[in-house]
């Protein structure tokens, strides 16, 4: 049971400290891919730790049925007091009930997440399909569709097939170099499957909104994905061109404030990192710190697996 407690403590630490640390590390967008990896590992490790702790707890309850008071006295001093004497069976039932309810809660969470992801997928694919039917193919740019609309919009949408949509107003606002940069940015989103990442993290944030690791993680991962796409576009067309394209499409008063998700956040950050890339020292230090943030959950998991493998899983081993 002590491993289960450790797993829960680990999850608690990541949930509390994770967002504080990671937001600071990934704010500047020095190595956006590494940043996304760090966030993903932190986010994924928490439900895994919960599930593992739950599994361990249930296994131990089943194995130690009838001998639970000794198990508790051996491992967790606090609960040992409650398990003393004739309260044994009551505590047993209570703990089993707790484990069952936790399992149910986890199942409900996963079910709602799966439903949210399913809805997101079908809505997105339907939008892509409608854009293909209603939009006009852009000459000479495979997979790009033009929609007649006064708002200056350019976006990528996953579907069968994946599509980049740009409005007539946006086309008018961009010169050829800027247009190439915008399309390169959007295609980078599709090639990098960012929609899957954003859908998964946003779904998790919707299903468990009280956990800032998930909500901050969803927002930060979306921001970092924009920066990854900016880097791809800048490699092919130059950072200044990407910046001028950003400026050409911003400031459209028709767009509702705060809409369009990540594309609204961190525009100033995106422009700043394109115009002033970090120096060698700053960049190396940031990469180092992010690499540590990536390694921490991996090493933690490896340590716990090693501990479990060497039989240190439960005090129940003493009873056998």
């Amino acid at each position, binding site marked *: 049971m002590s491993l289960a407690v450790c797993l829960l403590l680990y999850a608690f630490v990541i949930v509390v400290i994770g967002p504080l640390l990671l937001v600071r590390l990934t704010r500047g967008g020095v190595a956006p891919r590494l940043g996304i990896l760090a966030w993903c590992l932190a986010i994924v490790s928490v439900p895994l730790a919960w599930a593992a702790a739950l599994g361990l707890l249930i296994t131990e309850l089943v194995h130690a049925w009838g001998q639970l008071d000794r198990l508790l006295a051996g491992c967790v001093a606090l609960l040992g007091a409650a398990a003393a004497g004739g309260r044994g069976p009551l505590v047993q039932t209570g703990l089993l009930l707790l484990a069952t309810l936790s399992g149910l809660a986890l199942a409900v969470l996963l079910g709602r997440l799966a439903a949210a992801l399913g809805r997101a997928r079908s809505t997105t694919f339907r939008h892509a399909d409608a854009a293909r*039917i209603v*939009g006009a193919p852009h000459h000479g740019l495979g997979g790009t569709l033009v929609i007649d609309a006064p708002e200056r919009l350019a976006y990528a949408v996953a579907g069968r097939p994946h599509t980049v949509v740009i409005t007539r107003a946006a086309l008018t606002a961009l010169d050829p170099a800027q247009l190439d940069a915008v399309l390169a940015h959007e295609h980078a989103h599709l090639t990098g499957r960012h929609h899957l990442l954003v859908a998964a993290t946003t779904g998790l944030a919707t299903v468990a909104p009280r956990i800032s690791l998930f909500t901050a993680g969803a927002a930060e991962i979306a921001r970092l994905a924009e920066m990854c796409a900016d880097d791809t576009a800048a490699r092919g067309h130059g950072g200044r061109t990407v910046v001028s394209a950003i400026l050409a499409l911003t400031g459209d008063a028709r767009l509702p404030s705060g809409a*369009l998700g990540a594309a609204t956040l961190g525009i*100033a950050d995106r422009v700043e990192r394109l115009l*002033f890339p970090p120096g060698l020292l700053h960049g190396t230090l940031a990469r180092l710190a992010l690499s540590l943030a990536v390694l921490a959950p991996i090493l933690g998991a490896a340590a716990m697996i090693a501990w479990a493998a060497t039989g240190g899983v439960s005090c129940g081993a003493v009873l056998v």
Partner: protein
Amino acid sequence: MRGFGELEPVVIERLWAACGTGTVREVFDQLCAHRDIAYTTVQSTIDNLHRKGFLTRKREGRAYRYQTTASHAEHSATLMVEALNRDEDSEAVLSHFVGHMSDEELTRLHAVLGQQSRGRRR
């Protein structure tokens, strides 16, 4: 991916051009003048569009007469509503290039651009 999907925009364009109404025979007659196409292909495409909600239909003798549910402009506007997130129920995952900035973002952006024009690095 070759398939009926490729023809959907072509077929609906024909129907919009014909005041939003037509039968499979009418659309086929117009299309086969410009391209090598089978009657059944046109029929399947129109069926798909009907299934997806772009067309309604009424029996006319032994065939159906199809009607577009909205004009081209109306469909574009609906897409934009979803793209702009104005549709509360929409959960589509779209990766926009830029959005609308808040006043704080705008101030920050001006500061960044000001640094650039002064040729100074932070």
